[in-house]
């Protein structure tokens, strides 16, 4: 069954989507929309397919020296198994308001590269950070 969705119509990509906070059904923050992916079919129809989160797409969007620096930083934080930006299918977007609510839990997605880098390099090295019960 298709879930009931609340999205503006017409929906403006820059105004309604870019840089808005994405939250999961429990209200956990996923990150902000750094870019929006489109698909062009054989009839020339262009449709929104996904929201992208990550320093890499953000850097590419900003462009210039600042954008290159952000992309380079994102590249340094990538692990070998990193598939690239976090990609949220637009089909899973339930509500577009001051925040964007998706229908999937945050745990189903990879941890964003910046968060993982901070966890592995800084937070994880603090004594006792691995398991609070010890």
């Amino acid at each position, binding site marked *: 069954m*298709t879930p009931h*969705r609340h*999205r503006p*119509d*017409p*929906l*403006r*990509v*820059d*105004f309604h*989507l*870019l840089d808005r906070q994405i939250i999961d059904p429990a209200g956990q923050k996923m990150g902000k929309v750094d*870019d*929006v*992916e*489109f*698909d*062009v079919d054989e009839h020339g*129809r*262009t*449709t*929104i397919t996904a929201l*992208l989160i990550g320093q890499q*797409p953000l850097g*590419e*969007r900003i*462009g210039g020296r600042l954008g290159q620096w952000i992309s380079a930083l994102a590249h340094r934080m990538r692990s070998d198994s990193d598939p690239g930006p976090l990609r949220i299918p*637009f*089909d899973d977007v339930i509500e577009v308001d001051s925040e964007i609510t998706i229908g999937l839990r945050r745990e189903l997605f990879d941890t964003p590269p910046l968060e993982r880098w901070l966890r592995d390099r800084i937070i994880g090295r603090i004594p006792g950070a691995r398991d609070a019960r010890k």
Partner: protein
Amino acid sequence: MRASELLGRVAYDQEGHRLGKIADLLTEAGPDGTHQLVAALVTPGHRGRLLGYERPGINAPWLINRLAAVLHRGAREIPWADIRLDSPSEQ
């Protein structure tokens, strides 16, 4: 294709006349729930964020309205089918 590849690009009409820069992309929901690109908001000058006051039916305080009128001067929505992105000189 990403939104960042379209936003800020110069748009031309079918005859190759320059319309301006793409400031926003408008999509509409189809019967299957997908959002299809139907139009672009094009500004004649510098592409900056238009803060949303260019949308129809927005009632802002007088001062904001005056400011928005200056910022949004010449901004218009052009059907996506009427837009081409390649410059006439590239033909």
